[in-house]
């Protein structure tokens, strides 16, 4: 065991754009790697998180699996962070909230333009969709929020360096964007 700060990350109902933006810290990731190690994350392929300090959650809650993953993160992370517009208010996936779920599925899998072998996927391994996409703070307690679509690399850097230095994280005006 090392004394490094342990970070886990995941994307729920997101596009991985926030993860891509995180990687835009570029060579600063080397300095970060001196201080932290990554646990469960798409960057490591570790499947479950154990005793982490910081959990970064991208995306909103769209299906039953998202709920389980989010609860696993809350249980194992001391500090849980909502990253990006979708985690904070559902974002673009939540724009399906105004259309009944059955209509969405019908359009995507039965009657939409160019659909072949029309059938609604029903493999038991597929997580069931929620009737509405929800922001993650409605499901578990969230400690910090990083707005943006995506938050810029500098937002990640400012937030993590504040936290790692033991400061209360804060974002100056230039780093606060909802778009």
């Amino acid at each position, binding site marked *: 065991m090392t004394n490094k700060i342990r970070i886990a990350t995941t994307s729920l109902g997101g596009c991985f754009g926030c993860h891509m933006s995180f990687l835009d810290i570029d060579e600063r990731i080397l300095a970060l790697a001196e201080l932290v190690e990554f646990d469960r994350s798409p960057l490591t392929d570790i499947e479950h998180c154990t005793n982490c300090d910081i959990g970064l959650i991208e995306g909103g809650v769209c299906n039953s699996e998202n709920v389980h993953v989010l609860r696993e993160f809350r249980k194992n992370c001391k500090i849980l962070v*909502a990253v990006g*517009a979708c985690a*904070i*208010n*559902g*974002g*673009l996936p*939540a*724009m399906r*909230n*105004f259309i009944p779920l059955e209509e969405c599925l019908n359009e995507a899998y039965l009657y939409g333009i160019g659909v072949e072998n029309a059938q609604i996927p029903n493999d038991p391994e597929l997580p069931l969709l929620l009737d*509405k996409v*929800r*922001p993650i*703070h*409605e499901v578990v307690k*969230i400690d*910090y*929020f*990083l*707005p943006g*679509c995506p938050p810029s690399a500098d937002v990640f850097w400012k937030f993590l360096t504040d936290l790692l230095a033991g400061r209360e994280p*804060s*974002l100056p*005006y*230039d780093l*606060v*964007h*909802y*778009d």
Partner: protein
Amino acid sequence: MSNSITIDGKPIPFSEGQTIMEAATAAGVYIPHLCHHPEYTPHGSCKLCNVKVNGRICSACTYPAMDGQDILNNTQELTDDRQKITQMLFVEGNHFCPSCEKTGNCQLQAVAYHLNMLDDHFPLFYPTRAVDASHEALMIDHNRCIFCTLCVRASQQKDHKDVFAISGRGLNKHLIVNAQSGLLKDTDISMNDQAAHICPTGAILIKHTAYQVPIGERLYDHKQIDQVSLASETLKHDK
């Protein structure tokens, strides 16, 4: 000393008949607001301009300045209240900034930035609201309406047309237009009306202009709303 109030301890002169908002703006003191506009009768509905006057909460845009008032404006308590009010405005409508063409030029967003609002705090309503794109030059996206009534006032007071009104109460409150069909195309609004340009959010939009200025180079992307607001409104109050 006569005709003077203090805001956060700073003495500010006022002239008879001025509201606290008018006196503050003239003196270069920003009080956050959304439903207030210096050219229209104050409405006092958004409550962002709540200030503490001699210990009591009042709306600065409607409350008259009176000699000797001791006013608190820029305090942590009021900033927290204003942030909660702004969060309520966000969750009550559907404000998806990344897909809104008003992003960067939106006063609701800019006030939220100014208050360092990082989340919505409350559960989201996701109300089902319509878009009226019937008019050839304008559109209404009801998802983004915050019921500030600026379009209602602009249409009545400047355009002398009465195109807009607010109907219903509480959760059922909504913006309506003056046409049998309920559609904007059947009203007498025109693109040059004040009412077409006054919306602080992306609820009333001019078509075909959306991305003339790229995201990142827009009004509030690098300037805070307090600077923008004071620069544009000081002149108008003085008229």
